[in-house]
């Protein structure tokens, strides 16, 4: 337990009314190790520890707290701030239909998440249309169709089309005709270093002019989170991040790395394989989880 470890480092010191460079050294080393073990990117950890140190230096220990508790409070608060605060509500009036593009690396949970998003929005009174644009993965379109059928949300029929640009063209037309007010576009998983496929995403963005581009990231992602999310952000300017598989026991430090390097806020979390295992992101819960 990190807060206990921090308490221990301070217990060894005496006359500790203020947090100082010296008495914080061991505690900061413990915090650094905890964040690295939680998969926060090492560069992000470095910056974060420095910010914590600066905030803590010379700060009078608050009444009722000992220096260790004080430091934990600063660390927790710093994490919550970095994680971007409570997710704000979507303003659907900005675009009709409201277009949401879902992107990310292979296997992170995009297709499943598209279903969860559709279900979440349908429950809020929206009329979503799911648009399968993964023309590469075997049975990907069938997967989204099956998910859609399970929640009674229409899925655009991409079955005999093999060009994502053509699919979205027709899907937009259908949505306007059938008065669907949200388009959720599922894209194929891809590597950020695959120029052809990253270009495909840029072209899709140009055609869709989406109000949201959600990057779907796996909670167990390690140090590479900064590189991959950073590249997607560079190419598309992400509007949000959804972290999946938080029902596992991965600490999820990638959430911090991704927030830091893209500035895109975490919006939702996936908590299981069922369509209801989905909720808005809570920064304080994530901070606690990362700290362990």
């Amino acid at each position, binding site marked *: 337990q990190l807060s206990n470890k921090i308490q221990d480092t301070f217990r060894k010191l005496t006359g500790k009314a203020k947090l100082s460079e010296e008495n914080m050294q061991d505690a900061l080393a413990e915090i650094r190790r905890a964040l690295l073990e939680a998969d926060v990117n090492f560069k992000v950890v470095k910056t974060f520890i420095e910010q914590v140190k600066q905030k803590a230096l010379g700060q009078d220990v608050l009444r009722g707290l000992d220096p260790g508790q004080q430091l934990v409070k600063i660390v927790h608060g710093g994490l919550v701030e970095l994680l971007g605060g409570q997710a704000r509500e979507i303003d659907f009036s900005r675009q009709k239909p409201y277009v949401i593009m879902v992107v990310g*690396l292979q*296997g992170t949970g995009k297709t499943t998440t598209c279903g969860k998003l559709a279900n979440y929005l349908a429950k809020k009174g929206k009329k979503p249309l799911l648009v399968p644009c993964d023309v590469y993965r075997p049975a*990907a379109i*069938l*997967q989204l169709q099956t998910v859609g059928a399970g929640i009674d949300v229409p899925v655009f029929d991409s079955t005999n089309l093999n060009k994502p640009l053509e699919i979205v063209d027709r899907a937009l037309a259908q949505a306007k005709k059938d008065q669907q007010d949200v388009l959720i576009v599922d894209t194929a998983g891809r590597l950020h270093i695959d120029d052809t496929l990253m270009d495909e995403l840029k072209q899709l963005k140009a055609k869709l002019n989406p109000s949201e581009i959600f990057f779907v990231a796996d909670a167990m992602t*390690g140090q590479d989170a900064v590189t991959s999310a950073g590249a997607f952000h560079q190419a598309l300017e992400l509007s949000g991040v959804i972290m999946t598989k938080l029902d596992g026991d*991965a600490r999820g430090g990638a959430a911090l790395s991704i927030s830091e390097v893209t500035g895109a806020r975490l919006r939702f979390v996936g908590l299981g394989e069922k369509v209801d295992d989905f909720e808005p992101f809570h920064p304080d819960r994530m901070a606690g989880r990362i700290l362990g």
Partner: protein
Amino acid sequence: FPGLRKIDESLLEELEEILISTDLGFPTTQMILEKIRKNKGQDLDAVTLKKRLQAEIEAILNQVPRPVIPLDEAPSIFLVVGVNGVGKTTTIGKLAHHWKEQGKRVLICAADTFRAAAREQLEVWSKRAGADIEIKENSNDPAAVVYDALERVKAEKQDILIIDTAGRLHNNPNLMNELAKVKRVITREFPNGPHRVFLILDAITGQNALQQAKQFVEKVGVTDLVITKLDGTAKGGVAVAIANELSLPIQFIGVGEQMDQLLPFDAASFSESLIG
């Protein structure tokens, strides 16, 4: 690091960052740095330093015995497991292709009876590889379709049976029990089976991979690893931590989404790309 560097604390700090960035993890990183620290004061150039790190990593990997996958006494039964989305189904397509090319008769069992379009996805792969496939359309009991596949293996004298399972998180007791049950069904029909249990691990996974490996070893008796998605920028360093702590051999690596993008594991080239 250009030019000649003295091995001192500042260099060790830089090396620590390099190793951590590959997902090697804190403990394994410290273990390697301790060894380098013994040469404090020495001057080394960048190339020698790099080779030194690669050698340390390769040594950890080579400490793990890598048994040859048993294919001489048919049928060889392989169970493929792992958490969600790591590449199990795709890897099975690649393995089937790999062994078909060696002239083997391969049967694939679609035991992911849960996820949308899982059976259809595997069916495409079996067609591509030229393998047979056992599917049970309206069942949601993996043990039942595995049983059918085992009976079929006996009847048809298949050389190899590869069983695809649903992705599952290792901290879900019900799902881990379901997998243990599938394994028992196999052992009941074939006392020496499953001959190997492959844990598929995504190269991008951070420290949680250690926990995944521990739990899957404990609950399902994993014997070998396959690391996928090494065609990305992730280095898969946690595989070294797993070698160090659990002594699991890596048999293959996945380097793409196509059927032929599976390579036998090579410790030297893996270490080289880790400290590229």
